[in-house]
């Protein structure tokens, strides 16, 4: 169980689901994101946006989640993009080579 707080806020419109994640994403909190994603996809949305700007920490299971979702989006034909986290949290994406492999977008371009 994570000792830190983690929250998911859903801000959906008709064909895009946006999940705003905040707090620490780790082994304990990854399942909650998986559930929220499944719930969003069950409503037949065209695009899923994960807003990582509020994340203060991401561990390896969190990184795996993004890789899996990226591959799944390609296979199932829905749109997937990520809003960059703060610099401190972005570092783990940079050093693992995920920055250049995942669909990061600036927040403004998503509107």
């Amino acid at each position, binding site marked *: 169980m994570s000792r830190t707080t983690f929250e998911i806020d859903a801000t959906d419109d008709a064909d895009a689901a946006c999940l705003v994640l905040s707090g620490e994403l780790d*082994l304990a909190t990854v399942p909650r994101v998986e559930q929220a994603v499944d719930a969003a996809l069950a409503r037949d949305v065209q695009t899923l946006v994960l807003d990582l700007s509020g994340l203060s*920490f991401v561990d*390896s299971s969190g990184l*795996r989640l993004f*890789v899996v979702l990226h591959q799944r989006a390609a296979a199932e034909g829905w749109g997937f993009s990520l809003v960059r986290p703060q610099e401190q949290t972005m570092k783990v994406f940079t050093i*693992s*080579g995920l920055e250049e492999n995942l669909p990061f977008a600036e927040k403004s371009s998503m509107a």
Partner: protein
Amino acid sequence: MEGETERAIRDERLSVILDALAEAVTIRAPNNHLVYANQAALERLGFSSVAELRAADPQELMGPYETADEHGGEIRMEDLPSVKLLRGEHPEPLLMRSVNRASGEESWVLLKATAVRDEAGEIESAVTIIADVTEATRATQRVEFLARIGELLASSLDYQQTLRNVAGLAVPQIADWCAVDLFDADGQREPVAIAHSDPAKLQTAARLRDYEPERLDPDQGVGKVRRTGEPLLYTEISDDLLVAAALDEEHLRLLREVGMRAVLIVPLAIGRRTIGTLTMVNSESGRSFGMGDVEFAAQIAARAAVAVESARLYSERSTVARTLQSSLLPEAIPAIPGWEVAALYRPAGHESEVGGDFYDVWDVGEDWLMMIGDVTGKGVGAAAVTSLVRYTARAASEFDTRPSEILARVDAALRRRPTVSLCTALCLRLSREGATLAVGGHPLPLRIGDGGVQEVGDYGTLLGALQKTRWPEVDIALKAGETLVAFTDGVTDAIGEDGERWGTERLRESLAAAGDVAPAALRTRLVRALDEFQVGAQADDTAVVIMRFDDPRQARESSAGHASVGGRGNG
């Protein structure tokens, strides 16, 4: 003197009514003598007529019974509600346990006394109604006992200790002795617990064990219960039976010393398999066992059996996990010329799960390769991936010993798996001249040396799934006495108070504070620093490999010379 009460009692009609009651009713005069008892009370006290009762010494009336209050305390005559009432007190009803000395039958009665006053308001006598509440009391006790057993059994996975606690709880409330035996794979009994409220008696029990035959007799006692899976109740244990069972004089003496009056053995069963027995013996209390006790003991045994089985399964799982885990790590770090190496591996809190961290050190001709990594996920699935990574790296090194190439091969092998299998890893080639490093999505190693504690190397791509990949290879210059520390994120992600992570900064400080010490000593300090910081159970696996570069010339001169290397920076 004859009061109103007695006159009334002598009224035939009232007497007939009182005799028809199931409850015992007695009347006690102010001189504490019983002056009346209805039919039920006479039977209970063992008198044939009221006249006989009146002639008896009130102190002797309890004679046929061993009595105690609900906590096992002695009950004296002055504790009886009727006697208290006559003393002018206002007594609460008294719950009394009594065991018939002759029959061993236990019963619970509730004594309620009411004062009968004369016209002036003085107490003329005390009427006691004695209700048999045996069934209700036992039912309550059993429910409470089972609840406590349930808590005990759920409280720990150390089933041996738990069974000892259960046995301890059963005495003296349920029985005078309580023992639990389990059967091993060969059907041999393995005594797990035996309890008696008197420790001296336990020694007798231990000596009795020595007389037990090597193999259980399938036709009696524990052996029979194991064979039939049915409870076994011996209500009458005569001295003849002991004489017949005794192997020699000393044995007979011990058997007599225990003074068994009744024995109840119930199976600990999982489905149709009897994994053990619960034995209850009544001796000095004089109690016997009834069918209610058999049912009750069976309920305790059923709960205990489930607890034992879960604990055994769990411990098997832990053993499998430990075996699998150790197969994923090198048995020992080989001696590397020019290097001194120490490694640390600590799986996360859950003993029954295989972690995803690993490290390996192996030789490739002149040089050596060291790999440390973290496979995402846990359990047998992660173990399979770890195994794949480790053996792919070893196989790849047969053809090419460049760290970047090793990582590329591991990446390719992971991609061929049907499910997304990610792994962070760092590969170092150690030679007499220094080290070469490639990193795949893994934290950079630290170098402890003249420049303090600094990250070395360059980041590369996480292994297993990504399209754009790069694993830049970096040569690391090292002076003699300088140390490289490679670690997994379990170290830096360790959570302390306020949910704060240990972080790279604290790791660096801790390494810097350790000063110039050998790898094994550094490992010890690191473990201590982590333990001091960490709160609660360790959440993630932790692996660390510490490598000190020794002066190659000195290493050549002395094979055991690792510790004799002089101060660093002299190369």
